[in-house]
């Protein structure tokens, strides 16, 4: 039986760990709420933009935009979106695993580079030959310190410029999508070239719009806008998913700590009882000896 003092100190240490994990859970819950609010605030914009975009492009056939041009895929850029901090379960590892898998399988034979948004991916890829951050400033991974539309659209703009200059033939985003607090969905999404918009009941809103200056130019204006939104949405989604994952992970850790404390307490009481029983036995034995 382990000695009493040892068990007591273990109970104290597990208890204080539990305090930390449950506090982190609360913090994540609050941050998750805020992250979800940001997504909700962005949604009307994204929806409306999509609506106008499909409205304009549905009546414009065979448009060859510089962002929708399909080329033979030789150079691929993967945008890895992870978190800055750990302690959130398999969140970051899933992204890294997915990227390593697709480099090996899907993009075998092409030249792949990875730009990391989020410190965890950066830490992983910075030493590999896939790492790149040319044109994205010194620390593209620090975007999550200050996640605003302006910061995110600067990155989107840089990617678009590099794509149209021919540096990349395909750009994909790999990130966790927020499904609910417990579930993250791995996303592997094509960013560039732009996929033709899905024709959702073309002609459902056949309004005769006046276009100013003209459809082509509006489209040229809208497509970069929708790409910026796509990246921003991915970042926000990943941010919310991160907090969701951390909340779940910390919840599990707190539960585990509870179980551990329970078990340790049981052992502690057993040991205490054993020592008391031992003492009584000694006293009784002593008394017997005196009698005889």
């Amino acid at each position, binding site marked *: 039986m382990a000695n009493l003092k040892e068990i007591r100190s273990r109970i104290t240490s597990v208890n204080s760990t539990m305090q930390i994990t449950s506090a982190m859970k609360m913090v994540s819950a609050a941050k998750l709420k805020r992250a979800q609010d*940001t997504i909700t*605030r*962005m949604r*009307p*914009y*994204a929806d*409306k*933009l999509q609506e*106008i975009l499909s*409205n*304009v492009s549905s009546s414009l056939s065979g448009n060859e935009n510089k962002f929708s041009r399909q080329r033979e895929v030789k150079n691929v850029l993967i945008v890895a979106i992870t978190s800055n901090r750990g302690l959130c379960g398999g969140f970051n590892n899933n992204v890294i695993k997915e990227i390593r898998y697709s480099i090996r399988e899907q993009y075998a034979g092409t030249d792949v580079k990875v730009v990391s948004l989020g410190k965890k991916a950066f830490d992983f890829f910075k030493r590999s030959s896939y790492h790149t951050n040319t044109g994205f400033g010194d620390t593209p991974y620090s975007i999550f310190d200050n996640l*605003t*539309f302006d910061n995110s*659209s600067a990155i989107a703009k840089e990617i678009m410029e590099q794509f149209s200059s021919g540096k990349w033939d395909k750009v994909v985003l790999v990130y966790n999508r927020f499904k609910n607090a417990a579930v993250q969905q791995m996303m592997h999404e094509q960013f560039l070239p732009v996929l033709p918009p899905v024709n959702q009941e073309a002609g459902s809103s056949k*309004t*005769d*719009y*006046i*276009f*100013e*200056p003209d459809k082509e*130019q*509006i489209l040229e*204006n*809208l497509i970069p*806008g929708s790409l*910026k*939104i796509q990246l*921003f949405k991915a970042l926000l989604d990943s941010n919310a998913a991160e907090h969701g994952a951390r909340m779940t992970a910390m919840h599990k850790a707190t539960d585990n700590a509870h179980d551990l404390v329970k078990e340790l307490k049981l052992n502690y009481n057993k040991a205490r009882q054993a020592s008391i029983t031992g003492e009584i036995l000694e006293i009784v034995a002593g008394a017997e000896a005196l009698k005889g």
Partner: protein
Amino acid sequence: MRVEIITPEKTLFEGEASFVYLPGSDGSLGVLNNHAPLISSLKKGAIRVKEGSVEHTFQVKGGTVEVLSNKVIILAE
């Protein structure tokens, strides 16, 4: 007419207005009640919205506007 100015981060303005002035990329636009359906891109400039006797001004870097059945939706950046 109903006017909404939305940015990716928040809704800047939502309400009834009698007149909206927009920096269209081909020149300024004014939108009054019962304007014909219109989609236009915007350039850098100020949006002015007249709500009763009050006038609100918003600076934008660019964006898109849609006018449809007395509803003006401005996607600003």
